[in-house]
């Protein structure tokens, strides 16, 4: 059969592959969602104020405050887009409204934003650290603690070059996160939440102390944001510096100043990316997250910038503290010098945490967006090919980090230069998102969970037409700022347009290559596989019996565990399901996964190899693809849905079998009821097997304990009326008593347990390892049904 004939073999000749079209997610609360977004959005508070003041003068905080208020409106647009598209993100929205070309441009602008987030955050963190080191040198010198030799070496008080040190620091941290992402760093909302908790403590201290300082020193407010108070630097006027536009047109000056402050709201896109994972009721929780983000960023970035200008004297604010404004605030508070220095150290630690976290977010975000467009066929599979050892999309990570390192080196550690360029990506991705939403108001008139208010209805040709006043207003502001920024931000325009053009070209060429290639892959798939799309995974849909063995596969070079499973399983009695958890990052498809989004030539090779192995053993297997955000969660959810009795995996390159089992146990605990226990086998390359039981199960009892139960039972049997008492009743009574004792005096029970039992390590709380014996292997072949334990208060 020729590849291009289009004829498809009969169904019976082809292997069925069930494709789940909904991503298996673990959902997070609105607090965690807000924390993830604020890790990106909140980090701009550390540099936005200084950058804006450098450009427009002392009135800058009013503009930052204005931008933070306007961010409410921009966020409102994102909430509407998220209520329409759960998978959200500017790419999807723009593609729906304006088509592929605009979508590719919007992604290029977004990539520019993401790629610059890393360098600006890393360099800013470096500026805070280098500034602190110089301050500590000065303080030590004032106390005479610096040796003369060091004085001679530095020709005075020792100091380090702030910009170069900041650039070096940014390079080191970027390389660190590059390696973490190559290995496949675990994205954790816990981490984001903890960073935001610490940041909140710092913000509360900062604001309370700053307000006290302002009241104590009777500090004046910054000059009002009126044209005569604007003092633009030459760089701030960009291509217009030889014209009188910025000075003579009063309102135009306000517009330019607003454009220089817009980077304070960078990070809004993260809200669309994290929306998919917000727990039910999704829209209500999204609104709650939006409110938390709004209040926090308004208070921290907006009020913080205002108080900084009020507290730090003009003489040093721009010249010394421009790049570490919050450190400057710490040093000019009212109070003892040592206390201020300690607080500055705290500010730097928090800055390091949130800003270095933003570097990681930028790599993860860019990786997610590029994977997302890759799934849509806009980037060739070459980029998405997984790392041989770690299974990550290392080529995309390499590309992102290389661009970030190039940017850091090119900037020489200058935050102003980076900030100048940064605004391009921010404003254009917002603008395209808002125009797309505006178009969709007329294109898709259906109900939305949220509509940007206000909307008025006017009668038109016998019917009522809705005019989206609010949405149009937001677009007008964003568009005018984006256009004027093209003229006033010279560096941003040159770098942004150049970068976007290169990415746009890559996307366009890739799409053409992919279309040609996919036509071939699709034909191959049609010849060998029969794809069945299902919204969710169900046992009946996959057509397997209860008690199946679920084999997880990822890399076609390491399928030894599949061979082991087929060797040890009688497939006439127990079905074998081969599952690939297709990892999808932030912004990846939530629903409507098309065939081309799921099957690249990589998946084709993986499944062809799995089928070929099964054919070698003369056994049948079922194939399953599950899109997932978290692989562990996907495995336990699938095992539960299929009523599998065993899960088989190969040994991971990143973690031990015990760690794999622990992660699986954690995912099992997080899964909602009803849930089933199962056996987890990790097959090593030498075919030895580690076996674990996931979920509550009958514990392995020591021989002496069994004898003790039996002895008690024999004793009880001596009494009359004890005919109906069994061994299990004795265990039940003992456990009930232990449960009661535990609720009365936890410490005493724990003390006795620790004294008498050397139990499993805390890590092994959710599973119990069993020795790799013939018995456990046999059990895997024919798993027995576990009887759930009676409910026991306290840890298992």
């Amino acid at each position, binding site marked *: 059969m020729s590849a291009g004939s289009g004829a498809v073999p009969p169904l019976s000749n082809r292997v069925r592959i069930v494709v789940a079209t909904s991503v298996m997610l673990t959902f997070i609360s609105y607090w965690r969602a807000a924390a993830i977004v604020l890790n990106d959005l909140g980090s701009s508070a550390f540099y936005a104020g200084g950058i804006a003041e450098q450009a427009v003068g002392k009135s800058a905080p009013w503009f930052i405050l204005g931008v933070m208020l306007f961010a*409410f409106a921009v966020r409102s647009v994102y909430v509407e887009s998220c209520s329409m598209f759960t998978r959200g993100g500017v790419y999807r929205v723009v593609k729906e409204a304006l088509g592929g070309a605009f979508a590719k441009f919007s992604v290029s602008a977004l990539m520019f934003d993401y790629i610059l987030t890393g360098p600006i955050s890393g360099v800013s963190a470096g500026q805070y650290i280098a500034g602190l080191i110089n301050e500590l040198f000065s303080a030590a010198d004032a106390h005479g603690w610096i040796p003369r030799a060091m004085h001679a070496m530095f020709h005075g008080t020792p100091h380090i070059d702030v910009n170069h040190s900041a650039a070096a620091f940014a390079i080191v941290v970027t390389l660190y996160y590059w390696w973490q992402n190559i290995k496949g760093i675990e994205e954790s909302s816990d981490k984001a939440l903890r960073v935001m908790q610490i940041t909140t403590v710092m913000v509360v201290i900062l604001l309370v102390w700053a307000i006290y300082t302002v009241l104590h020193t009777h500090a004046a407010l910054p000059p009002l944001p009126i044209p005569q108070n604007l003092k633009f630097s030459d760089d701030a006027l960009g291509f217009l510096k030889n014209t009188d*536009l910025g000075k003579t047109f009063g309102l135009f000056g306000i517009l330019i100043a607003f454009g220089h402050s817009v980077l304070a709201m960078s990070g809004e896109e993260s809200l669309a990316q994290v929306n998919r994972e917000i727990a039910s009721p999704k829209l209500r929780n999204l609104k709650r997250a939006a409110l938390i983000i709004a209040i926090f960023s308004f208070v921290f970035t907006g009020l913080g910038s205002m108080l900084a200008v009020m507290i730090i004297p003009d003489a040093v604010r721009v010249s010394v503290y421009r790049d570490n404004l919050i450190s400057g605030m710490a040093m000019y508070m009212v109070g003892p010098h040592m206390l201020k220095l300690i607080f500055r150290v705290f500010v730097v630690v928090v800055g390091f945490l949130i800003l270095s976290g933003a570097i990681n977010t930028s790599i993860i975000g860019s990786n997610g967006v590029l994977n997302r467009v890759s799934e849509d066929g806009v980037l060739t599979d070459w980029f998405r090919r997984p790392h041989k050892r770690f299974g990550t999309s290392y080529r995309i990570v390499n590309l992102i980090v290389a661009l970030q390192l190039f940017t850091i080196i090119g900037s020489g550690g200058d935050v102003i230069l980076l900030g100048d360029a940064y605004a391009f990506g921010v404003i254009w991705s917002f603008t395209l998102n808002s125009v797309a939403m505006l178009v969709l108001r007329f294109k898709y008139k259906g109900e939305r969970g949220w509509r940007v208010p206000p909307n008025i209805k006017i009668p038109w040709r016998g019917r009522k037409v809705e005019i989206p006043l609010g949405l*149009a*207003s937001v*677009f007008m502001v964003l568009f005018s700022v984006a256009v004027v920024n093209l003229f006033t931000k010279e560096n941003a325009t040159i770098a942004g347009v150049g970068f976007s053009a290169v990415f746009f070209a890559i996307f366009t060429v890739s799409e053409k290559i992919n279309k040609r290639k996919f036509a071939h892959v699709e034909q191959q798939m049609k010849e060998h596989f029969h794809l069945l799309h299902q919204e969710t995974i169900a046992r009946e849909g996959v057509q397997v019996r209860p008690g199946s063995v679920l084999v997880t596969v990822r890399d076609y070079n390491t399928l030894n565990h599949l061979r082991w499973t087929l060797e040890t399983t009688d497939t006439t009695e127990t079905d074998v399901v081969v599952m690939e958890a297709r990892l999808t990052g932030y912004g990846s498809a939530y629903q409507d996964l098309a065939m081309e989004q799921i099957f690249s030539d990589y998946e084709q090779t993986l499944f062809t190899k799995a089928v070929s192995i099964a054919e070698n053993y003369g056994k049948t297997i079922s194939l399953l693809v599950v899109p997932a955000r978290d692989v562990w969660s996907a495995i336990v959810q699938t095992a539960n849905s299929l009523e599998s009795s065993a899960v088989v995996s190969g040994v991971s390159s990143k973690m031990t079998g015990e760690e794999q089992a622990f992660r699986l146990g954690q995912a099992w605990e997080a899964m909602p009821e009803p849930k089933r226990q199962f056996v987890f086998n990790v097959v090593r390359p030498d075919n030895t097997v580690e076996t674990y039981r996931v979920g509550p199960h009958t514990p392995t009892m020591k021989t002496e304990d069994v004898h003790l139960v039996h002895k008690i039972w024999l004793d009880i049997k001596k009494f009359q009326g004890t005919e109906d008492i069994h061994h299990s009743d004795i265990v039940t009574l003992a456990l009930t008593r232990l449960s009661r004792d535990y609720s009365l005096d936890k410490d005493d029970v724990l003390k006795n347990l620790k004294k008498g039992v050397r139990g499993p390590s805390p890590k092994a709380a959710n599973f119990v390892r069993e020795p790799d014996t013939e018995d456990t292997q046999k059990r895997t072949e024919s798993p027995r049904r576990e009887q759930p334990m009676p409910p026991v208060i306290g840890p298992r």
Partner: protein
Amino acid sequence: MQKVNFLVHHILPLFQYLFLAGLIGAVPVIIITAIKTAQSMLEED
């Protein structure tokens, strides 16, 4: 060059009016969004 001059002196300044109109229109967006999102905090799941 003439075209650039025309763009800079006649077209670009028009954006300030677009900006002003947008800012005025954005005020109710900000107020209503703030109120509605705050209400979501009080709603029971």
